[in-house]
């Protein structure tokens, strides 16, 4: 591992690097499987059983079942892979993203209409 990771200082942000990829490998590969319609069907029918086919941790599986995307990301989920889950649920990127912010969907949608989340106070300002 690099001895320092300046990007860990960026607030409210998980950068998907090799360490995260390693932790989340099977979680992300599970997500990939949802790209095929028959798999989406089987997953919908019995989520725990489908998840049990993958060498994921129980914590990862529970996070999927709970659709707790922040938790999934802390356990190595990459957003583009996790997107297969919310696509399967029929919800959009905007809807899924709003669940990670602690805002309601209407609040989040309004924030975006108003120009998005401001960078002011949301960036790392110190030395790298």
């Amino acid at each position, binding site marked *: 591992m690099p001895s320092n990771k300046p990007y860990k200082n960026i607030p409210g942000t998980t950068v998907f690097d090799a360490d995260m990829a390693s932790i989340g490998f099977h979680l992300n590969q599970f997500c990939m499987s949802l790209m095929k319609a028959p798999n989406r069907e089987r997953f919908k029918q019995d989520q725990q059983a489908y998840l049990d086919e993958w060498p994921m941790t129980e914590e990862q599986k529970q996070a999927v079942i709970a659709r707790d995307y922040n938790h999934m990301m802390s356990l190595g989920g990459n957003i583009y892979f996790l997107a297969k889950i919310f696509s399967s649920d029929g919800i959009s990127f905007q809807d899924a993203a709003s669940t990670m*912010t602690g805002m309601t969907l209407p609040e989040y949608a309004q924030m975006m209409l108003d120009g998005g989340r401001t960078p002011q106070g949301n960036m790392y300002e110190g030395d790298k």
Partner: protein
Amino acid sequence: MAKITAGVATSHVPAIGAAIDNGKTQEPYWQPLFKGYDYVKQWVKQQKPDVVILVYNDHASAFDLNFVPTFAIGCGAEFKPADEGWGPRPVPNVMGHPQLASHIAQSVIQDDFDLTVVNTIDVDHGLTVPLSLVFGQPEAWPCKVIPVAVNVVLYPAPSGRRCYNLGKAIRKAVESFDQDLNVQIWGTGGMSHQLQGPRAGLINKEFDNAFLDRIVDDAEGLSQMAHFDYLNQAGSEGIELVMWLIMRGALNDKVELKQRFYHVPASNTAVGHLVLENK
């Protein structure tokens, strides 16, 4: 000989594709965005490119974590739209240009760009949404497309500097191809956005507009920007903007700005769009 005549930059937000596919482009939310693309739709009909080299990122559609190429070039004859969880986008298959693509691959590999040569991959919204924005909804895409996929999923993406230099190498390759082809190069993705975590929804207009300024007139300088600055200022997904530098590196130092457009929001993203012609 083949020649790169122009470049296009555009965001490739999946919600834009959904809006087009579901007939929502004239709704109040979408109408101002699509208006910004009226110009390029007319412009491209006059330009009549034979081939578009389309730089984009795959979003865990063709590539999973078993294979993460830094740069991949599609040398196949035909590419299907990917099923990203909703079924494939209802758009025509993308027809490639195997001869030019292979020629580019061979040239840039010998210029020390360590490409992965792919044959056929499914192409996701990163590639098909720009085609829809520029060409509308035709029965068939009116030109050949060479997909150039860049890793922005697994940190680190290639640097802005690396991307800019790859653009130069691609230009050199195109100019040594002995068929008279009118070639465009498109750089897609961005602009500032963050799709994940508590900071989801980040939009940085200052950063984006400075980027739109500098990529025209100070691309060399802009190419020095570090990963950290993209991630910190433009959002975790803002790193995609390095791909615009591949497009810019393939054009002349001096270009004519034919269109500049910026709009917030499209879903979680700031939409940016440029049309640049070689002088």
